[in-house]
């Protein structure tokens, strides 16, 4: 036995050394997007792709520059240009970024804009269309600010570019003293190195600005900032909680047992189980979510439990082997069902706990081979002597049932993805402030309209636009630059039918309105060329592909090409009533981008599927127990486990509003531990021994560990901690009263 255990310890040491060489910063992820399943429905993939490929690489910033102090913008531009992580700088209060692509827009103005222009004229008679065009031009030139387009008018009398640029330029972005900016990042925005470089650069810029221009103000926000705060917050919390839990478990053990042997056993078994758990997830997953390790802290409670049972069970090993193996088997079966869970986080937690459990069991047995088990009575001599309270069943059970029924009437489930985030209210406030200055309607919902390819996405977009009544909030209506393929088909037929009638009519109308027709020759030349090209095969597809490739800056957020599995999509911002949004979302291929609503729905689905898994796991565990226990014992254990979980849920429901996925996980863990206690208590009762000290020690240490978790800032971890600690304490009490103490 000693030789085998030595081999096991050597294996553990080898794995521990291997883990020391793992680059944890690269392998650990704090990105909420990684919590979503890989093989998820297209909407979820799309949202994740949008967040990771588009949004994450963007930083929104606002420079407040009172009186446009001389040289201020040049300074900021130069400083941003020197930051290695910044790739592009786009001022949103001007259209320089659109004009950078001026040549493209100008070259394609007829292909991209004329179909919309043509569609806007109800009468498709060339003469009346030409007359309307000249009237529009006349009106346009009567605008005081029309002078900025004077140079372009001879090439664009239909005003395709001025009207088109006005939809590319956001309405009223920035005040006269405020410069809103969009910055694109170079490198992976979720890479801590990129995040640190950005933070350092921005801080240096802020300090330099304040030194030179006291009233200048520089603020920035973006996914990258949230990701960094989330990562730093959770990492700090993991460290704090781990230390607190470890110290509290050791302190409690020392206080209650005052012996080094159980302390040593617990330390070795917990370390062994963590090494096994971490080793398994590192081998099986490229990216491990840091929350999987936080939730995996539940392992420490069970590992300590095994250590205590093995080190306090003096006598033959087989005396404790039955409850130990039965407890392990039922818990392992339960957690193995996590592997089939739809959430990657739950799968990783399942792997971590399952392999950790196996490691804890093997390490506990190995420790027993080297450390002589202590006498339970000797170990328990420092425990306060408290007799099991004797409560009449006919009073206790109805009271419990009443409590459960009362709580059931208040019990409701909540599903909010934000509970997985490290709370950063100041960043949310900053983000809201910046978005209010960048977008005309920051509360507007962004819809993604998707399709397998461009044509499908554009056709679906047309359908969405038809359903919307009233003006759209969208500041930038990119689809006005992408003609509907069906519309282009109609236009082709019209051009075929009418020949040069429109150009001739336009020339006549221009002349009649005192325009110099000769000056408009650049337009007529381009018109002739475009007419020849529009009937070429695949004209629409080439046009859209070229446009997609030409977009940069804020425009690149507006639509994306489909490549393989990634669908094509357009975005539009809609400030509509919720019921109308719901109707739009019901259309095929429409996804609401403000992910919370959508992801929370997914989250609710995950909770119900986890609930199903847990019920199946409970049934399997019950079947295992039924096979090994007497009928009366079986119902006693089942009653204690179910009663403890029900009472815990009842208490939590009365205490705070809403139970969630993590309460469910906590309850499952609690049930596994209570089952363990019941089996050991039952074993002791069979042999007419007192309630095992190990149960008291395990309950106290586990409850204290999870009480620490309930101090977490992350709501999910907090709820898990509360549920497990309440469950364990209630289960311990019920086990004591009904399973053991009854006799």
């Amino acid at each position, binding site marked *: 036995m000693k030789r085998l255990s030595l081999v096991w310890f050597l294996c553990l040491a080898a794995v521990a050394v291997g883990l020391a060489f793992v680059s944890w910063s690269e392998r650990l992820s704090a990105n909420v997007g990684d919590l979503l399943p890989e093989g998820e429905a297209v909407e979820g993939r799309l949202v994740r792709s949008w967040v990771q490929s588009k949004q994450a690489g963007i930083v929104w910033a606002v420079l407040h520059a009172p009186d*446009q102090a001389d040289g201020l*913008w040049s300074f900021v531009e130069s400083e941003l240009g020197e930051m290695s992580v910044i790739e592009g700088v786009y001022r949103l*209060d*001007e*259209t*320089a970024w*659109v*004009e950078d692509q001026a040549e493209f827009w100008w070259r394609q103005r007829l292909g991209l804009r004329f179909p919309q222009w043509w569609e806007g004229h109800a009468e498709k008679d060339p003469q009346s269309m030409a007359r309307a065009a000249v009237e529009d031009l006349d009106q346009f*030139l*009567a*605008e*005081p*600010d029309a*002078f*900025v*387009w*004077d*140079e372009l*008018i*001879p090439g664009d009398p239909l005003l395709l570019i001025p009207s088109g*640029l006005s939809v590319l*330029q956001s*309405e*009223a*972005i*920035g*005040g*006269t*003293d405020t410069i809103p900016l969009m910055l694109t990042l170079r490198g992976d925005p979720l890479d801590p190195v990129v995040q640190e470089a950005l933070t350092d650069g921005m801080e240096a810029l802020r300090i330099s600005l304040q030194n030179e221009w006291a009233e200048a103000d520089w603020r920035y926000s973006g996914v990258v900032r949230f990701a960094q705060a989330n990562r730093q917050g959770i990492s700090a919390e993991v460290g704090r909680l781990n230390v607190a839990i470890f110290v509290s478990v050791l302190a409690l053990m020392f206080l209650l047992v005052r012996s080094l042997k159980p302390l040593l056993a617990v330390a070795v078994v917990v370390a062994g189980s963590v090494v096994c758990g971490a080793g398994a997830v590192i081998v099986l997953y490229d990216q491990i979510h840091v929350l999987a390790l936080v939730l995996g802290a539940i392992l420490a409670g069970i590992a300590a439990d095994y250590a205590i049972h093995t080190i306090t069970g003096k006598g033959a090993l087989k005396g404790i082997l039955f409850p130990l193996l039965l407890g392990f088997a039922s818990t392992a079966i339960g957690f193995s069902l996590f592997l089939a869970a739809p959430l990657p986080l739950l799968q990783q937690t399942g792997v971590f706990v399952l392999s950790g459990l196996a490691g804890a069991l093997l390490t506990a047995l190995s420790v027993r081979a080297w450390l002589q088990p202590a006498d339970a009575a000797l170990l328990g001599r420092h425990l306060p002597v408290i007799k099991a309270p004797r409560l009449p069943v006919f009073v206790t059970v109805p009271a419990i049932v009443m409590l459960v029924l009362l709580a059931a009437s208040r019990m409701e489930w909540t599903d909010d993805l934000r509970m997985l985030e490290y709370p950063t209210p100041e960043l949310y406030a900053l983000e809201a402030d910046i978005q209010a200055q960048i977008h005309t309607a920051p509360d507007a919902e962004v819809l993604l309209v998707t399709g397998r390819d461009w044509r499908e996405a554009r056709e679906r977009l047309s359908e969405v636009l038809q359903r919307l009544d009233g003006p759209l909030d969208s500041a930038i209506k990119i689809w006005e630059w992408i003609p509907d393929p069906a519309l282009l088909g109609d236009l082709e037929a019209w051009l075929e039918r009418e020949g040069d009638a429109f150009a001739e009519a336009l020339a006549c109308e221009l002349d009649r309105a*005192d*325009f*110099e027709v000769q*000056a*408009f020759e650049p337009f007529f030349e381009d018109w002739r060329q475009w007419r020849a090209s529009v009937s070429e095969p695949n004209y629409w597809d080439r046009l859209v592909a070229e446009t997609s490739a030409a977009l940069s800056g804020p425009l690149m957020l507006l639509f994306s090409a489909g490549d393989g599995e990634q669908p094509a999509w357009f975005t539009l911002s809609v400030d509509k009533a919720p019921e109308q949004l719901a109707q739009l979302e019901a259309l095929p291929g429409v996804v609401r981008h403000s992910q919370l609503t959508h992801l929370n729905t997914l989250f609710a689905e995950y909770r119900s599927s986890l609930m199903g898994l847990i019920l199946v796991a409970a049934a399997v565990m019950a079947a295992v127990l039924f096979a090994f226990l007497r009928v009366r014992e079986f119902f006693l254990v089942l009653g204690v486990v179910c009663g403890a979980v029900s009472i815990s849920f009842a208490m939590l429901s009365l205490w705070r509003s809403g139970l969630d996925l993590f309460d469910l996980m906590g309850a499952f863990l609690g049930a596994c531990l209570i089952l363990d206690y019941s089996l050991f208590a039952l074993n002791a009762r069979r042999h007419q021994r007192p309630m095992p000290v190990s149960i008291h020690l395990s309950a106290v240490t586990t409850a204290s560990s999870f009480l620490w978790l309930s101090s977490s800032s992350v709501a999910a971890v907090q709820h898990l901690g509360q549920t497990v600690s309440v469950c364990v304490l209630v289960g311990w009490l019920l086990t004591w009263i009904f399973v053991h103490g009854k006799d």
Partner: protein
Amino acid sequence: MAAAASVALAQVYSEVEGLVIRVLLCACLLVWSGAVSLSAEEERSPWDLDALLQSLSSASAVESEFRESRHRGFRRVPADFRGTMRWDAELGLSLSYSEPRTQVMLIRSDAVFQSQRGRSPRRMPSSEESDFLRAILLDVFRFDRAVWEASFDIVAEFDEDRWSILLNPLEDSEVAGMVERIEISGEADAVRQLEIWRDERSRVEIEIRDSRTVEQWPESVLREAFFRETEDGEEP
């Protein structure tokens, strides 16, 4: 006196033969008569260029009514506009159009802003035309000889209280490609007309009247014409 001298020189000319001598004498005649003419006008006018510019630039805030005619190369008839023009050395040049549309344009050194009634001001797209506005109009309205001389060749004419200034862009100046010439005319210390010639077919004529110096802009003007935030933080 100048006329008598010219007659005398003409007599000499009739007696002189030879093309070179005739050309030289002609040039001398023109230069001399021009110089005499200008000095005669300066004698008659209380102004010289420096005094005029000093007077024009002394007011840091001026409000005037204006009428603008835009002659475009691609159209045979001009487009006419009317409104109120406000110049402030610190805040820029504000053009509040009232006809045919209501619109305010604020020209500052960093950008041109535009606002239609009831809407927030927005920065106008940077273009050749808006860059031209900023570069030319702000420089012109500074009435700073040094600034002008950096970009233009200056020709000034005075006739009693009336005066005119012709600004021809220097060949190597930034404004050379933007404008062909600028003509400013006025009376005493008031500018009456400004003509900006882009080329022979495109020009802007601005007639200015009822100019008055302003000590302090009312809050409503600051808000609506210069897009300044008021004390209660409201923006137009």
